[in-house]
């Protein structure tokens, strides 16, 4: 009996050592507490971010941003609202244009990508919630280098590049050096296997896309789905490697239970169950610039159309 107990103990110790990085990350990177701040612009009360009941549909705000040291507080390069229904395995994704001109939860109006810079995840969540009239249960933030490492750790992703993505002003800021330098990139069309660096180039480029940031939003959703497809091949034994890969490049409010729930949806991956929404011009938004926007080029929301979409897809 004692022998069995000792073996069980040593086996548990071995397993604990294996999953130790996951536990550390579970403490350090998941389950981040976020308190949505009061809105100076709208005067609503401070509300903690409640969570949906286990097994119930929940909404996650995915945030992607520079972590390159350009700004003390980085702007978000990507903001995607995702609704996950674990029961039906349905996923809805809505990309929010980074240049969308909105009232920020921290006060004043600006491009929505500034919300994270001014107030971190809490301000980004509050800004999206109040403008889009949605409830956000969780958030997840990943840095650019984190995305590269994650895709490389997954062994790359298979993506359909729908048209040549050429950019003569792509930021050359990932590998150090002059952070404001730029480079040329060319992603050729067709199905292909992309490593992390090339996948990032594909989702980050926007200067030559006829759809500008909207085209980039569509590409971001596409790579997200490719990551999800690849994640469906993972199992619990892969978690320590994934956690190690994302160290310092990923934070989320989700606890391990919800992460497991997401992995469950990924395992039952079916493209037919994924709905993708991009707020294209002219239906949902329009371009503008001028003194009213601080002289910046911005995307002006058509709220009646946008809110109809969010009501229907993010109840």
């Amino acid at each position, binding site marked *: 009996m004692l*022998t069995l107990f*000792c*073996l069980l*103990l*040593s*086996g548990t*110790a*071995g*397993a604990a*050592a*294996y*999953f130790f990085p996951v536990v550390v990350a579970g403490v350090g990177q998941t389950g981040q507490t976020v308190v949505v701040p009061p809105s100076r612009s709208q005067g609503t009360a401070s509300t903690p971010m409640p969570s949906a009941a286990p097994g119930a549909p929940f909404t996650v705000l995915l945030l992607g941003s520079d972590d390159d040291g350009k700004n003390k507080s980085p702007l978000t390069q990507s903001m995607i609202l995702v609704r996950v229904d674990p029961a039906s395995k349905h996923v809805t994704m809505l990309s929010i244009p980074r240049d969308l001109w909105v009232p920020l939860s921290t006060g004043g109006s600006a491009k929505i990508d500034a919300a994270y810079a001014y107030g971190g995840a809490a301000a980004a969540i509050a800004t999206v919630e109040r403008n889009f009239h949605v409830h956000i249960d969780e958030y997840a933030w990943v840095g650019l280098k984190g995305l590269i490492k994650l895709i490389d*750790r*997954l*062994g*790359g*992703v*298979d993506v*359909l590049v*729908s*048209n*040549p*993505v*050429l*950019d*003569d002003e792509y930021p050359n800021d990932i590998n150090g050096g002059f952070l404001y330098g*730029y*480079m*040329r990139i*060319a992603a*050729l*069309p*067709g*199905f*292909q*296997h992309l490593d992390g660096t090339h996948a990032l180039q594909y989702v980050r480029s926007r*200067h*030559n*896309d*006829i*759809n500008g940031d*909207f*085209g980039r939003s569509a590409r971001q959703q*596409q790579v997200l*789905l*490719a990551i999800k*497809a*690849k994640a*469906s*091949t*993972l*199992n*619990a*034994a*892969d978690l320590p*490697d994934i956690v190690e890969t994302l160290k310092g490049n990923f934070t989320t409010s989700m606890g391990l239970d919800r992460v497991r729930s997401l992995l469950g949806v990924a395992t039952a991956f079916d*493209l037919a169950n994924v709905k993708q929404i991009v707020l*294209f*011009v002219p239906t949902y938004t329009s371009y503008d610039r001028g003194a009213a926007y601080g002289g910046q080029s911005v995307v002006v929301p058509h709220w009646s159309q946008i809110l109809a979409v969010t009501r229907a897809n993010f109840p």
Partner: protein
Amino acid sequence: MILRRIAAILFVPVMLAFGSGVYLYLGTLKSKVVQERPQLPTVTKPKFVLPGTMFVVQEGRLFKLEAGSFTEIGPGGEWSQPTLTPDHTKLVAVLRTGFSSDLYLMDLGGHVLKRLTKNDSRYIDYNHWAFYPRISPDGASVMYSFDSPKVNGVDLAVWSMPLNGAQWQARRWTDPYSHTGGDVSPIPLASGGLLFVRHSIDSSTVVHSQIYFQSRALGVATPLTPEADDCSQATLSPDGTQVAMVCTHGKQSASLEIASFNGSALGAPQVLVDGGLYASPAWSPDGKALAYFGPQGLAGHFQLWWLPLPVAATPSPSIAAAPSTSASARAASTVAPTPAPVQVTEGVDLSATSPPAWF
């Protein structure tokens, strides 16, 4: 008592070994897809011996597949998109360096004979891309996609230059739709015309790819496939009477299709295989089969596949003269009873944007 202590002391290493065993065992349970790292083609053995000689690319390295084994050719660098001269004695391939790419003429052993273009510059904006070289049937000129002029952003147009001439003699053939990436995959025809793939955008801001025909430089380009079909990566059969292509129909998966070709128009397409991530089809030297790239498993690296064409599925060359751009023509497309594709390579990571050059 002493025996018990000795037993306890001896049991400690057993516990350590068991704990370590559990740790190591868990490591073996990792997803094989994630663990999988591609091998160089030269250390693999194809499952199937293809007829003739084929050139493919992996991670910027050129490989020759002949008699069931791979040989690496060419100097170091980031090579891609090899294409053969009509007499099958030379290759033209793309070499990426920094922020530009150039075309090089080489022999079949990969020795560079001539640099055809010079697109690099110390000033970043003056760099250019050259991709998709394809040599005319008479062997006199090479057509390729080139990002000039850079007026409305960076878009590829089809250009042509003499194979034995200089880049200043190159002339532009197509006028691309701006900000969509432009025109790619030129196929010079024996008639002097051109097949190519154009990327355009519709009123709902969706970008499409279509196969176009153009009879002369800067002439009117005629679409041969409907916008909604999103067909690309066309390749002409050795006898010039059929076109193989990849069509995505607006989805994230594709069908591999063939259609008859009369020199300026396509017949009704026949779907050979559907629902996969197919890329860069190439005709076998006898025109009776296709090779293409597709991933191994759900989301793996791209492997080489072989697809024999059933005799019944080969389209008749007698087709209508009018381009088949109407929806009705597509409605006539059929799913041919094609034999199952055969996976040729395993464990490699072939470049899916570099069509095989095969003779």
